[in-house]
């Protein structure tokens, strides 16, 4: 027996999922998080799961972990003294950024302060320009001077980012070597190692954030590894990175910025696994939580990767699963604006006080209050029974909104949900057009505490016809970690035109990247059968500044005509047109290397002998639209079996969520206990 643990740490809960591939057994455990030291809840969670299930800790063979330590450090602005070395003449770049304000009209809103204050930003005389050409060489005496200055400032970490180091890294490497020699105990981040990519400010910001996170991540992972070593033994610990694969704990210490969006990425990995199970290559994932919703687009069973995003107001140039957060969730507060229009969010009641119906002092109407008032949520709370709901409190806050808007309470409550859904739909549409897709062609995979509650409304507004609700919507992240691949991207920035010399110019770049991938496979102990690589060329029209990734096999498609055709097709798909004859260039070559851990976690079951229509556990009046309440059957998800079919209206309750099936929609249970809902036209 060799168990794999998937451990997802969220702000509120730490989820542990255990899986044994030879028997197909799974166990789940959920416990409160310990934000001050997240390792505490993890170690306790492992202990509790073992105690409850009889699993022996020494039978655990591998642990995969998704962490929010990096993100939380940035949110909480944990102190860390970072020094920075830049090219002479550019020490203010970190503070200037792109010279824009975060809000055009709001005179009071500012960007977050730079991570490195001005007096800790040092300049070094050297210069590289276009093509990686050295204009001014970096002298040894200059290195000695600046390293002495930096050392005297006694930093916890040092970042180095010089102009054009993505093309010529010699100056940064020499500085790095000298810094490591002079300050062996201090963490050093070089931009040519963190992210050797074009555009100095984004590279600089990423490098500085990496340096800032290094000491913090080091402390955390050391604590966690020590604890695991003690209770479980010396098992490999994989850390989920923002781009949706696992890296070793050692690599996470060196490049902590890679984990800055690790949490939601695990959920998407879980969703991808589900999409494969149900054979649905194109899906939109919708994870609705208390304050926000995370949305991702899956195409051909995979989420796309984006290479830049903002984390707490700072740009990060790093691959991450293309997930967008929309500021609408179950706790979003409804309010009346000065023009009399009703708005929902972006303010949220959060966990404390929470929605009024939690009875913990919330006084503003939220999306959850509306769901309870309309009968969509049970007054008994979730089936776990841990938290009964206060219907009166919800009714009281909704009555106030009704009075303010001159609507009935029911219409006001329906309105709160309609507006929250409209916000989500607006967000999903923007994301779709940005990626060049029409949401209509996708299946909606709904999870998170409130995803299955709103999925049908969101789907209908987007013209989506099919919804999938996984068996354990609240544990998808932990499941995603178990099936996550070991993943690494290898990138080289180039500037190659499409001409006859292309194949010859590409060959050495590809060879170098493939060699790096091979070295990585052996370092990660990936079995040859599980090793996969995928090559993509980032291409654009000469003069364009956004690139499109074109898959590349290197077998017969490295001639310019074939590449032009592939790029034109990608441009058509993304933007609806292409520019025949316009010169095209390749700006970078990427190889994604993955070591597969794919397992079919929830094996398909045989159909049950029970009736195709299950028996409701109760019924209650539920409002679906303005035409009035409908007496609606309530089902217990745990009692549903393969082949069961439920025609809406229906409410399906389970431990961690509530599923709303609208009138005329049809829900059915598949062989893995997923719920599939066909949305009526």
């Amino acid at each position, binding site marked *: 027996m060799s168990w794999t643990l998937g451990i997802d740490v969220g702000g509120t809960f730490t989820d542990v999922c255990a899986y044994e591939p030879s028997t197909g057994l799974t166990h789940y455990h959920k416990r409160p998080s310990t934000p001050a030291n997240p390792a505490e809840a993890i170690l306790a969670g492992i202990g509790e799961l073992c105690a409850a299930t009889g699993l022996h800790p020494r039978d655990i063979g591998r642990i995969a972990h998704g962490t929010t330590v990096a993100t939380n450090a940035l949110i909480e602005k944990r102190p860390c003294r970072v020094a920075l070395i830049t090219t*002479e*003449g*550019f020490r*203010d*770049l970190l*503070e*200037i950024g792109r*010279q824009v*304000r975060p*809000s*055009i009209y*709001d*005179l*009071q809103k*500012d*960007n977050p302060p730079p991570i490195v204050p*001005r*007096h800790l930003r040092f300049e070094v005389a050297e210069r590289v*320009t*276009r093509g990686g050409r050295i204009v001014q060489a970096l002298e040894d005496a200059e290195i000695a001077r600046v390293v002495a200055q930096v050392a005297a400032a006694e930093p916890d970490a040092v970042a180095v980012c010089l*102009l*054009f180091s*993505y093309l010529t890294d010699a100056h940064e490497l020499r500085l790095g070597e000298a810094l490591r020699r002079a300050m062996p105990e201090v963490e050093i981040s070089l931009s040519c190692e963190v992210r050797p990519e*074009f*555009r*100095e400010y984004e590279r600089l910001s990423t490098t500085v954030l990496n340096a800032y996170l290094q000491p913090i991540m080091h402390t955390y992972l050391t604590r966690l590894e020590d604890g695991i070593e003690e209770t479980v033994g010396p098992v490999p610990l994989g850390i989920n990175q923002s781009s949706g694969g696992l890296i070793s704990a050692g690599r996470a210490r060196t490049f902590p910025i890679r984990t800055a969006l690790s949490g939601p990425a695990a959920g998407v990995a879980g969703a991808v696994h589900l999409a494969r199970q149900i054979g649905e290559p194109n899906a939109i994932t919708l994870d609705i939580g208390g304050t926000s919703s995370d949305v991702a687009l899956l195409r051909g069973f995979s989420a796309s990767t984006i290479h830049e995003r903002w984390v707490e107001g700072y740009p990060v140039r790093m691959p991450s699963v293309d997930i967008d957060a929309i500021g609408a969730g179950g706790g979003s507060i409804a309010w009346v*604006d*000065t*023009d*009399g*229009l*009703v*708005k929902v969010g972006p303010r949220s009641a959060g966990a404390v006080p929470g929605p009024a119906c939690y009875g913990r002092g919330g006084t503003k109407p939220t999306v959850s209050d509306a769901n309870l008032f309309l009968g969509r949520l049970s007054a008994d709370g979730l089936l776990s029974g841990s938290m009964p709901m206060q219907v009166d409190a919800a009714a009281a806050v909704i009555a106030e909104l009704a009075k303010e*808007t*001159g*609507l009935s309470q029911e*219409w006001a409550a*329906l*309105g709160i949900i309609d*507006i929250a859904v*409209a916000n989500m*739909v*607006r967000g999903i*549409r*923007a994301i779709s*057009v*940005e990626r*060049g897709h029409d949401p209509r062609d996708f299946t909606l995979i709904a999870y998170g505490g409130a995803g299955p509650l709103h999925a049908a409304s969101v789907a209908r*507004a987007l013209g989506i016809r099919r919804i999938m609700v996984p068996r354990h919507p609240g544990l998808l992240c932990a499941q995603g970690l178990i099936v996550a691949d070991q993943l690494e991207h290898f990138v080289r920035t180039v*500037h190659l035109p499409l001409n006859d010399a292309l194949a010859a110019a590409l060959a050495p770049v590809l060879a170098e990247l493939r060699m790096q991938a091979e070295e990585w496979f052996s370092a990660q102990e990936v079995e040859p059968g599980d090793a996969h690589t995928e090559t993509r060329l980032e291409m654009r*029209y000469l*003069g*364009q*500044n*956004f690139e499109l990734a074109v898959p590349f096999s290197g077998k017969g498609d490295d001639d310019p005509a074939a590449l032009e055709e592939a790029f034109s097709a990608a441009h058509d798909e*993304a*933007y*609806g047109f292409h*520019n025949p004859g*316009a010169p095209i260039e390749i700006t970078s070559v990427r190889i994604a290397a993955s070591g597969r851990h794919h397992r079919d976690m929830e094996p398909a079951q045989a159909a049950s002998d029970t009736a195709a229509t299950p028996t409701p556990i109760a019924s209650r009046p539920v409002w679906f639209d303005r035409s009035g309440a409908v007496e609606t059957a309530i089902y217990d998800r745990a009692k549903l079996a393969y082949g069961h079919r439920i025609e809406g209206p229906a409410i399906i309750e389970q431990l961690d969520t509530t599923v709303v099936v609208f009138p005329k929609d049809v829900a059915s249970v598949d062989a893995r206990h997923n719920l599939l809902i066909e949305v009526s036209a």
Partner: protein
Amino acid sequence: MSQPPELDPITLEVILSGLRSVTDETYIALMKSAFSTNIKERNDHSTALIDPAGRMISLCERSQPIHLSSMLGLTGALLRKYDLDAFRPGDIFVSNDPYTADGSHLPDVALSMPVFVDGELLCFMCNIAHHADIGGMAPGSMSGGMTEIYQEGLRIPPVRLFNQGEVVADIFDLLLLNARVPDERRGDYYAQIAACKLGERRIKELAATHGRGHLATAFDQLIERTHARMLKAIANVAPGAYRFEDVMDDDGFGAAAMPIAVEITVGDPALGGRIRCDFAGSSPAVLGNINVPFRALQSSIVYAVRALLDPDVPSNQGMLDAIEIDAPAGSILNAAFPAAVAGRANTCQRVIDVVLGALAPALPERAVGAANGANTAVIFSGTDGETGRSYVYLETVGGGFGGRATKDGKDGVQVHLINTSNLPVEAIETEYPLLVESYGFVPDSGGAGTHRGGLGLRRVIRPVDHTTTFTGQGERFLTPPWGVFGGASGGTGGFKLRKADGTVCDMPTKPGLTPITPDQALIVETAGAGGYGPPERRSREKRTEDISSEKFSPTFMAEHYGND
């Protein structure tokens, strides 16, 4: 016709969300598919939805504020030029001219597409993109040295670019022939066209969901509600007449210290709750190209009033109609043909300064010190020896943002009307034969105060292995940005030429075509900003930081805060 039923505030909000979604999506589509860095990286573009009465219904929130009312210009001109039944599905109109199409300057090319639902005209999908060149006597179509509109580029009156779904190739050829770098122009036009078409598709979907009649009713009611909301915000300003005056540096043709004067009236019964901005006393139009067409003036005032009174108000006609504007015809703020207008943004920024300055006593908690107050543009052109390609590189440089009631101003940002990104140094040097020697703050340029003004920016650029041609537009190079409530003025900016022997000489504020050789360098410095409140109330902690950050010299600190 009977009064349509009132839509409830929830249905209205859901429709508003849908309309915003349309302008969001078209904005993103334009940005993602454009060719020029000016749109893709600097996002100098906007999208909007306008109704058949020419009223603004929804403007994408990320739009450039200066595009707001010139967006209305084209559709307004179309409605004057044509009867409604002249519009056909698949038509797309184009224009840029301030005098025949109510544009704001020639590089801002506007597109407008009538959208039909059930055979009836429901609205126009509109967008503006700032094209990096529109022809005329100087590359970039923005430089100083031009005195009439004909020199500034190709004037496009409202004409069809698409006729019932077919491109009007004759017009398109004409547009492309008259701009430098026509391939880039073609790509940007395609992006604008694609954005119109996407908008048309989305509006039709929205109409299928809500019904055409409901959408048209929603247009009316959104405007009414926003108007009422603005009147409420204006009512928070104490009734009275508020005056303020500042001056422009010069126009590059001999006119100097031109006054920009405003009197803002609130509470006059004749206004019915609206606010009036009267610019009587401002300078007559000048020869240089910093004259402001009326639509650009309106954009500026709308920005200032919105920022002060209600930053979250929806951008629609109801907001525009709450502000009455008077500016003497033929003045620098209401330019008449054939006045040159390419550099109008500099004057627009000054208009905002005087509006904010006038209302400062009425709204002390929201007031700010005068900002960089310019749209400092640097344009280099020449031929890249390495690639043999000709190039035009245009960039606008930010500066200081004024001190505020509770905190310091901002250092090195675009201010007010302008919020475009800089171009990365690595992009500049890769695409153009230029080397950026340094890019940083100008020390001591933030006006002293309880909350100090922000610092200006300094950039030093030299051509590599060739002689480049420089032109520029600067403001607040002579007239410092003032402080409020006792705060001191910030530093002024300037263009300077560093010669081969290292000596530095000042250049005019609006230099015409100036050769710069590889052994020389151009230095551009922008103004800082004014402080807020008396300097003697600045905290010791803040003063310590001023010195430790080296943003201010000990001499400056002693001079403005005394020795303690």
